[in-house]
C-alpha cells in the first residue's frame, strides 16, 4: 500500500521534473530559433475551431441555469428576482467562463495535441525532427504554447458572451426581468478588475494545458495503447489542475484586490 503510494508520488515528481525540463527547453529555444509562424497560426485556428462550438453550447446553458437558480432563490427571499444579471455575469466572468473554457479546450484541443504528439513519439517522428535540424520543442511545443495562450482568452470572452446571452434569455422569458434591467445590473457592478480576474486565469490555464498536453505527448511510450493512455491522462490531469488552480488563483487574485 505504502509502496504503491510511494510509486505514484515518485512518478508524479518525475513527470513534474520532465515538464519543468520541457519549459526550460522552451525558454532556451524561444530566442534562438526562427519562430514557426505557420505552425502557430494553424494550431490556433485548429484549437479555436475545435473548441468554439462546444464552448458556446456549454456556456449558453450554464448562463441559463445560473439565471434560473439565481432568479428562483432571490425570488423566494425577496419576492422578486433582482440582480440576476449581476450574479450571472460575476459568476461567469470571474469563475465559470475561464473554467468551462479550460475544461472544453483540454477535452477537445488538449486531447488532440497529446494524441498527435504521442503518435509522433511512438512512430519515431519526434526523433526524425532532431535528425532534420529542428526539435520537438521548437517545432511542436512552442507553436502550441502560443496557440493556447492566444486562443484561450479569446474563447473565454466568447464563452462569457454566450453565458450572458443564456442568462438574458432565461431572465427575460422565464423570470420576466426586462432586458434593460438585466444588462443594467451587469454594467453597474462589473468593473475592469473582474475582467482582469478572468483574463489572468484564462492565461494561466492556457499555459498549464499546453504544458501538460505537450509533455504527455512527448513522453508517450508503448504504441497505440500508450497514445490512448497518454491522452486520457492528459485530459484528467488538466481538468483536475484547472479546478485546483482556480481555487488558488481566486484566493491569490482577490488578496491582491483583483
Amino acid at each position, binding site marked *: 500500500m505504502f509502496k504503491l503510494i510511494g510509486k505514484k508520488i515518485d512518478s508524479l515528481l518525475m513527470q513534474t521534473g520532465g515538464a519543468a525540463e520541457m519549459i526550460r*527547453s522552451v525558454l*532556451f*529555444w524561444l530566442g*534562438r530559433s526562427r519562430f514557426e509562424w505557420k505552425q502557430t497560426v494553424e494550431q490556433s485556428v485548429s484549437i479555436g475551431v475545435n473548441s468554439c462550438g462546444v464552448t458556446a453550447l456549454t456556456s449558453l446553458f450554464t448562463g441559463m441555469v445560473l439565471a434560473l437558480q439565481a432568479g428562483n432563490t432571490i425570488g423566494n427571499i425577496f419576492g422578486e428576482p433582482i440582480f440576476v444579471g449581476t450574479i450571472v455575469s460575476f459568476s461567469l466572468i470571474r469563475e465559470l467562463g475561464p473554467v468551462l473554457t479550460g475544461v472544453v479546450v483540454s477535452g477537445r484541443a488538449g486531447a488532440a495535441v497529446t494524441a*498527435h504528439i504521442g*503518435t*509522433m513519439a511512438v*512512430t*519515431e*517522428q519526434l*526523433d*526524425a525532427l*532532431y*535528425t*532534420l*535540424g*529542428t*526539435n520537438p520543442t521548437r517545432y511542436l511545443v512552442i507553436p502550441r504554447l502560443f496557440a493556447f495562450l492566444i486562443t484561450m482568452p479569446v474563447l473565454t470572452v466568447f464563452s462569457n458572451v454566450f453565458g450572458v446571452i443564456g442568462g438574458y434569455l432565461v431572465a427575460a422569458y422565464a423570470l420576466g426581468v426586462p432586458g434593460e434591467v438585466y444588462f443594467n445590473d451587469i454594467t453597474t457592478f462589473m468593473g475592469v478588475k473582474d475582467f482582469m480576474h478572468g483574463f489572468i486565469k484564462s492565461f494561466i490555464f492556457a499555459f498549464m494545458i499546453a504544458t501538460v498536453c505537450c509533455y504527455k505527448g512527448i513522453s508517450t511510450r508503448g504504441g497505440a495503447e500508450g497514445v490512448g493512455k497518454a491522452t486520457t491522462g492528459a485530459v484528467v490531469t488538466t481538468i483536475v489542475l484547472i479546478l485546483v488552480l482556480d481555487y488558488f488563483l481566486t484566493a491569490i487574485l482577490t488578496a491582491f484586490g483583483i
Partner: protein
Amino acid sequence: MIEIIDLKKNFGPKQVLKDVNLNIEDGKITCILGGSGSGKSTLIKCLVRLIEASGGKILVDGKDVTKINSEVKLAAIRRHFGYLFQDGALFDSMTVGENVAFGLKYLTDVPPADYPKVVKEKLALVGLKDVEHLNPSELSGGMRKRVSLARVLAVNPKCILYDEPTTGLDPIMSDIISELILDLKHKLGVTSVVITHDMNSAFKIADKIAFLHEGRILMEGTPEEFRRTDNPYVKQFVSGSSHGPIQMKIMKD
C-alpha cells in the same frame, strides 16, 4: 571516422549495451548484425544522441559526442548524420513533397523557391516520380522507405544511419534498397552504417560486418570472413538456424 569505445547503455536494470567497441570508416558501408532486441537501434541512436549513453565514448572525427552538453553544438553534430528510421518516420500530417523538403529549411541554404526542384531530384535518386502530392498513408512499405531516404538525402549528410532498411519488404524491393545503398556510396561517397538482420543484403553491400550479441560486438570482419567463420554463434545467425548456442529467450521478457 567514428570510433565507438566501451559504449554502455542500460534502461533501468536492463543492460542493453555492455561494452561495444567498433570503428566506422569514412566512405565505407558498415553493417551491424544482431537479433531483434539486441540493441542495434539503441546503438545507432547513441551516435546521434537520440539516446544518452550510460558510459563509454563515441568519437566522431576525434570529438566525443557523449560529452557535448550544449543543445546548439549537438544540433551541429547531428547535421552530419542522416537517419533512416525503421518505419520511415514520415510526418503523416504532411505530403510526400513537404516531407522531403522538411530538412532544407533548417539545414541548408536552399531558397524556398527551389524546394520543388530539390524534392524532384532527390525522389528521382531513389527511383520515385510524381509522388510529391501523396500522403504518407497512401504509400507502400518500400515507397515509404524510399521517400524517407529521399528526405535524408535532401540535406546532404556525410554519414547515413540505416535502421533495418530492408525489413518488412519483399525480396525484390529489398534488393532494390540494397542497390540504392551501394549506389549512394559510389555516387556520393557517403559513410553508411546499416543495421540489418537480412544476410543477403549484408553480404551484398557490406565492406565490414559487425555482429552484436548480448551487448557486445562478438565478431567483426569482411563478408568473406563471416561466410567462413567457425564461431558457432555467428554461424548460427548467418545460416538462420534455431539450433545452436543462441537460445531465444521465449519465456523471458
